[in-house]
């Protein structure tokens, strides 16, 4: 049995690049949602995250 899986660094780099691109797309998508959502609604949802601290 192999001790470690095969690691393809080039593949990992591509995956990181894709993850980053998707993350930035999500930030844009979220901001679009925010703009058409009443402040009371988005701030209440944001607080569920912020008030966990």
């Amino acid at each position, binding site marked *: 049995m192999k001790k470690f899986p095969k690691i393809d660094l080039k593949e990992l780099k591509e995956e990181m690049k894709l993850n980053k691109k998707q993350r930035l797309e999500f930030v844009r998508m979220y901001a679009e949602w925010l*703009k*058409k959502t009443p402040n009371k609604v988005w*701030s209440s949802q*944001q607080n569920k995250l*912020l*008030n966990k601290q």
Partner: protein
Amino acid sequence: MFMELEFSKGRIIFEKELSFLDKLVFEFTAILDKQKINYVVVSGYIAILFGRSRNTEDIDLFIEEMPLKKFLEFWNELYAQGFECLNTSNPEEAFNDYLKEKLAVRFALKGSFEPNFEVKFPKTDLNWYSLKNKLVVEINKEKLNISKIELQIPFKLYLGSDKDIEDAIHLWEIFKDRLNIELFNGFIERLKVGKKINLLEGKT
């Protein structure tokens, strides 16, 4: 379609449900206002204030330079209101070894470490610009001084971490139709982040 923000006489006015972080920021800035200390909030909290879905461990502020006597009054008021300095318990050391050396002092609620307020005297021309050209935001009738969005977005691009780029994109998406483009482009040019501007529109 635009977020429920009102732009009036150089101010942004809006209502929202305040978070624990917002309330803490208002507690801290109320002390600055009471002590008549000019301040400006910069960096990550600005994106969070306008809805960015992330948390932060610190809130960055520049405060005007002041003599030791005035700083001691500020320090005493902070302690009276339940804050403490994380760097040192000696106010003269905080003033002379940190602020006067253009280093940050951090204040948090007594017994806690996060979130904390990272307070500095302005050092660079850009810091001074933020303080002298602050934008007033009124949230639920409470006032807060923040750095101009036209500077914040290019500066976040300049800082360049994943988190900073995401903050820049968020602010761009919210404010792109309301920015002073001449001012915005001026900061893009001066911070030499023209090559990163495509990130704002998703043209990577």
